[in-house]
Structure formats: structure tokens, C-alpha cells
């Protein structure tokens, strides 16, 4: 059940209508973007429900049970409710900044999916700078957070926004360095090339001891920190900062922040799968199923963190990034370089 053939067939169908080539490509691009958008929206709706279920079962509760079988359309109901809510805007906000920040965060979260290899041949655009593009685009989120913090005209929001800025900037470094060690081996920044280099299970970077697993752990920690989730959810530490940068947001604007957080979580897991777990490779099942399956397992792990760990203190968080994670990431990079040079993994 590979979807590659289906998309190819649809494309040829479109081409056979006799439209000029430029138009065909344009229509195909827009259609593909819509498909990806729809898919991600669907995944996120499902993830919100899943998070609630995971948290509930960790805490010996049942979670949503009333709306459908085990509450499966709870998020749909919640979204409809949020859409109907009055949009409350505090009097003294900086209007344009306040208005655009959820949009910036939401769009930045979606843009990463342009280069996400969902399966064999299922990629919107195989950019030759794929992973670099993702790293760059996901950093946009921080601009949105700063905008929200600044625009809300609220002490807590501002503190929350500032904390996020500091945190994301710090954790970007170990994340990029750990990605570098993979790129070093593959010799390409393209997401497809990275996946292709892990065709056999023993080639998965997670099994390339010792640098692979270490890079993965660094990546995962930094990734969780980037998505502002427990144990690194200081920007929204409710005990200190009420709700952080999104304190003053309600209704649909709030839900955009909320959904963007889940999209980012899925992105972090999807990149980890691409880099370390062989992307779409796997036996029997079609490639896209493997990709999504692996990603969901990692998403579960990230949720598991959240419902188990307490939160770090802000200065410990910085210490951890700068005094521990970054040196380890660099040592790991050197290790990877040495192994590459000595031809350790030349299968």
C-alpha cells in the first residue's frame, strides 16, 4: 500500500489534461501542501486526545470518556468550543504584535513539514539543505513567543517570553551539534539522503555505537527543551508565571498556541526518527506507516517525561545546557569525526 504510486498517478492524470507544465506543477504543489496540512491537523487533534489519555492512565484516571468511544472526538468538541469563545483582548496590548504572535508560531510549526520525509517518495520538497532548513524554521517559534510576551503587556507574559528565548537559544546549540554528527556521516543535509543511508537496521544511527545513541539522547533532551515541555516547561511554569507567554490569550488564539505545541512535539519526534531510527525503513508494512508508527512511539516517550518529571529551576536549566549538554555534544561530534575518519562504519 505504498502511496508513492498513487501520487504519481494523480500527477500524471493532471498532466494529461493538457495544461501547461507550470500550471500543473503549481496545482500539484498546492494540492500537496493541503494534503500535508490536513494530515498534520488530523495528527495534532489525535495527539491532544492521546496526551490526555496518556496522562490519565499515568495518573490512574480514565480521561475523556463521554464524547465517542473512549472520548475520541473530545478535541474536536473542544476546538469547536474554543472557536465560539469571545476573543478577549486586554486594553493595553500592543495590537499588531499581540495579534500576529499566534500566527507566527502556528505557521512556523507547520513549515517544518515541507521537508519531512513521510515515506518512500512522500516528501513535499527534497531540499538539499533539508535539515538545516528545519533547524532554521523551528527557531521562528521563539520570535512568536517573544512577540506574545512583549505584546501582552503583562509581567508574567514578559518573563515567560524572555525565559523561552533564553532557553530555546541555549538548547539549539547542543541540538544542532548532535545533528551535525549525523550529517557528518551521511555527507548530505538532505532528509532523503539521511534516510537512505540507514536502509538496513544495523545502519540506523541509534545502533552505531557509541556516538549514535549519545547524539540521540542529546537531541531528545534538547528537543524536549525546545518544545517547552516538562521538565523544561519553565516558560509556562504555572506555579511561578501563571501561564507564561500565553497568559493573556484566550479562545482561538490560545488554541493556536496549544496546537502549535503539539505540532512541534510531533516535529521533534519525526526528526528524531529520520535521523536516528531509519526514517521510513522497515519490513512488511508500507513505509509511511513505519514512519508514523515510530514517530508516535517517540511522542509517547516525550509525553511520558511530562507526566513523570518535576520541573527544573531556571538557572539549573541554563547550567545543564551550557556546562553539560554542550560540552558533551562537542565531544560526541569529535568522536563521530574520528570514527568517520578511521572508517569504522564503512559497511
Amino acid at each position, binding site marked *: 500500500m505504498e502511496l508513492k504510486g498513487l501520487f504519481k498517478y494523480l500527477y500524471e492524470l493532471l498532466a494529461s489534461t493538457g495544461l501547461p507544465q507550470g500550471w500543473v506543477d503549481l496545482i500539484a504543489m498546492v494540492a500537496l501542501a493541503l494534503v500535508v496540512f490536513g494530515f498534520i491537523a488530523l495528527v495534532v487533534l489525535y495527539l491532544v486526545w492521546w496526551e490526555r489519555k496518556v496522562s490519565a492512565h499515568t*495518573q490512574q484516571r480514565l480521561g475523556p470518556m463521554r464524547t465517542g468511544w473512549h472520548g475520541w472526538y473530545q478535541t474536536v468538541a473542544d476546538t469547536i468550543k474554543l472557536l465560539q469563545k469571545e476573543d478577549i483582548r486586554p486594553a493595553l496590548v500592543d495590537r499588531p504584535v499581540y495579534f500576529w504572535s499566534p500566527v507566527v508560531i502556528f505557521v512556523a510549526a507547520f513549515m517544518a513539514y515541507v521537508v519531512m520525509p513521510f515515506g518512500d517518495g512522500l516528501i513535499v520538497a527534497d531540499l538539499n539543505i533539508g535539515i538545516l532548513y528545519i533547524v532554521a524554521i523551528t527557531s521562528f517559534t521563539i520570535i512568536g513567543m517573544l512577540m506574545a510576551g512583549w505584546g501582552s503587556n503583562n509581567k508574567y507574559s514578559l518573563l515567560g517570553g524572555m525565559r523561552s528565548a533564553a532557553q530555546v537559544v541555549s538548547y539549539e546549540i547542543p541540538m544542532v551539534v548532535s545533528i551535525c554528527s549525523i550529517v557528518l556521516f551521511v555527507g548530505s543535509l538532505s532528509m532523503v539522503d539521511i534516510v537512505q543511508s540507514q536502509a538496513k537496521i544495523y545502519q540506523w544511527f541509534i545502533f552505531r555505537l557509541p556516538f549514535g545513541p549519545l547524539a540521540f539522547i542529546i537531541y531528545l533532551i534538547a528537543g524536549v527543551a525546545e518544545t517547552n515541555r516538562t*521538565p523544561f516547561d519553565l516558560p509556562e511554569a504555572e*506555579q*511561578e508565571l501563571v501561564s507564561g507567554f500565553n497568559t493573556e490569550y484566550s479562545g482561538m488564539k490560545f488554541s493556536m498556541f496549544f496546537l502549535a505545541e503539539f505540532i512541534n512535539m510531533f516535529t521533534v519526534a519525526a526528526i528524531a526518527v529520520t535521523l536516528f531510527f531509519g526514517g521510513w525503513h522497515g519490513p512488511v508494512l508500507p513505509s509511511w506507516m513505519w514512519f508514523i508508527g515510530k514517530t508516535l512511539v517517540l511522542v509517547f516517550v516525550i509525553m511520558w517525561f511530562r507526566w513523570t518529571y518535576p520541573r*527544573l529551576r531556571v538557572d539549573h536549566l541554563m547550567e545543564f545546557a551550557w556546562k553539560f549538554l554542550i560540552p558533551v555534544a562537542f565531544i560526541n561530534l569529535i568522536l563521530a569525526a574520528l570514527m568517520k575518519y578511521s572508517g569504522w562504519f564503512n559497511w
Partner: protein
Amino acid sequence: MSEPQGLHTKEFTLNVGPIHPSTHGVCRFVVKMEGEVITELTPVIGYLHRALEKICENRTYEQIIPVTDRFEYCTAMSCNMAFSLATEKLAGIEVPERAEYLRVIMLELNRIASHLIWFGTTALDLGALTPFLYGFREREDILDLFEMTCGQRLTFNYIRPGGVSKDIPPEFIPKCREFLDGFNTKIDDYEKVLTGNPIFITRNKNVGIMPPDVGIAYAVSGPALRASGVKHDLRRDDPYSIYDRFEFDLPTGETGDCYDRYLVRIQEMRESAKIVRQAIEQIPEGEIRGKFNKMNFKPPAGEVYSRIENSRGEMGIYIQAAEKQKKPLRVKMRGGSYNQLQVMPVICKGAKIADLVAIMASMDIIMPDVDR
């Protein structure tokens, strides 16, 4: 390095509370900060003042018991107990043997329930959401036991002058035993989630250190004082009721930081379970209420102070009674939280603002106890 002209950091005043997610009720702090470091902390109290002491002056002794329930509602049993003890001391009332055992069982179960609330909220304040639910799950079992006995789950009105209001039903003891059998493994589970967790340790170790002399100077009592290494517990040092008949340890800490206070309370839950177990093994048959004329009780004139150890330290009740009066002249309540709050400005100085939450959680301050 000299500072550039015209540039200086300004002290920053932050108002925390009275409505804030982690102040355990309506506590308010006015915090002066230099960056994220606390330079001065002023607790502002009185948001939960209900004039309980004044209300007591207009009620008969039996009618005061439900008022004491509201004194410190996390451990309402101990408030009942403190007042009943004072009344008994005043009028020299004998309490039947079985009632004494029932009191001890209820007090210790209530201590566990209170510590479970502390456990849950401490974890919650540090950002771990799950232990809260775990704590409340076990507390639910204890509340079921209370409901089975006196029909109430929070304000019990159970321990009365001269004994207790109702006997336990026959299914109480097996149910209680079942709870105690499972409880130690449950505490092991809690410890697995928090005790060894590196994040939890860094958040708590060497944070909010209270030296023993500071604790004593501010009359801090209970687990918060024991965590500083002072082995002081009224159940052992000034035994009331029948506490001298039971075997139990007094867990103490060494440095008096938040982590020690955490460990002491966790151990205390185990010790309380031990006491309950001994009590349900030894409980005799018999009367549950001694001679006490609840409609027309008139104690002799005099004043009395009686104190017990509840989950937050020393809880004392002072009664002044006039000759041939059904109502007391003056009642004064003393709760442990008041002193714990009083010492906060001292131990918070130099801590980070995020530590304020951890310190307050570890002190286990509850506002009705402070404001009354």
C-alpha cells in the same frame, strides 16, 4: 569593575498572592527581589480570618467541636482532639479505654491523609503533576474509612470531650488493615517517582536551609523542626492520650533543607501506619464515651493549655473558663503553620524566586491554621 554612570539595577517588588496557583490558599507574600534573588520577603496574612476564637466564646463546649473542625481542615481530627483534651483537663473527665484507641487510630490516619496532601501539592508545585493524583488516591481510602465511621470526609466532629461520637462499624478494622498492608508499597512507589529523581533533588537539596537554632528561636515545630535535626515530638516528649503505649521512631533530618523535610514526612507516614497497625491490634471492647453532660456542662473556673502533635507541629488550645458558665470566657488556638510562616522571611533570604515555591511547599503551610 566599576559600574557605568547612570546604570544600576533597581530593586523589584513582586506581589505573590493572595490568589496565586501555588500559595496553598490565600497566602500573600510581598517579595523584594534583586534580579531573581529574594532580598526581603514579607508575609501578609489575614485573608482567611474567620474569627474562630471569638465564635468559640459564644458556644457551649460541645458546640465548639464543629468550629475546631474549621480551624485546620487538613487534620480536623487533631483539632477536635486538642480541644477535647483541653476540656477534659479542665473538668477532669475520664476517657474510656476504647475511645482512646479510636482517637489514636483516627489521629494517625488523619496525619497520613494530611501528609498525602502535602506530598501531592509539593510535587505539583515543583511541576510534577502525577504524584498529586497518587497522593489523593490513597487519601481517598482514608476518607472512606472516616466516612464509614462518622459520616464525614473533611470536617469530622468526631472526637468529643469524654470520648468519641460513634463507634467504628465492624467492617472498619478489616478495611483499615487492607489499607495498611498496601500502604507501604504505595509509599515505595512515591519514593520511586520523587526521592531519587535528579531534578527533584537539585530543586530541593540545600534549598531553604533552616538551622536548628533558627527553628527553635521561631518556635517552629513538627516535621519542619525535626528535619533540622531536633528530635522533638509531643507524642514522645509530652505524651497525651495513650501514645506512650506504642512503638514508633522519630525520623529526623540533618541539614534542614527542603529535601530533609521531604524525607522526614515520607518516613513519618510509615511510622504513623505503624502506630495505626499496633492500635488496631490492641483495641479493647467497651464504652466509647465517658461521663459528659453535653447539654449542661459547666467546668470549674480556671485556665488550661493542652497541646498535641499534629501533622504541622504543635497544636495547642488554651481555654479560660469562668465559674458556672456553659461557655468559655476565652479560647486561643495555636497552629504550627503560623510559626512556619514566620520563619519564611529568614530562610528565604538569598533564595531564588522559584525556590520560594519549593520552600513554602516543604514547610507545609496551610492558611486556615495561620489565620483562624
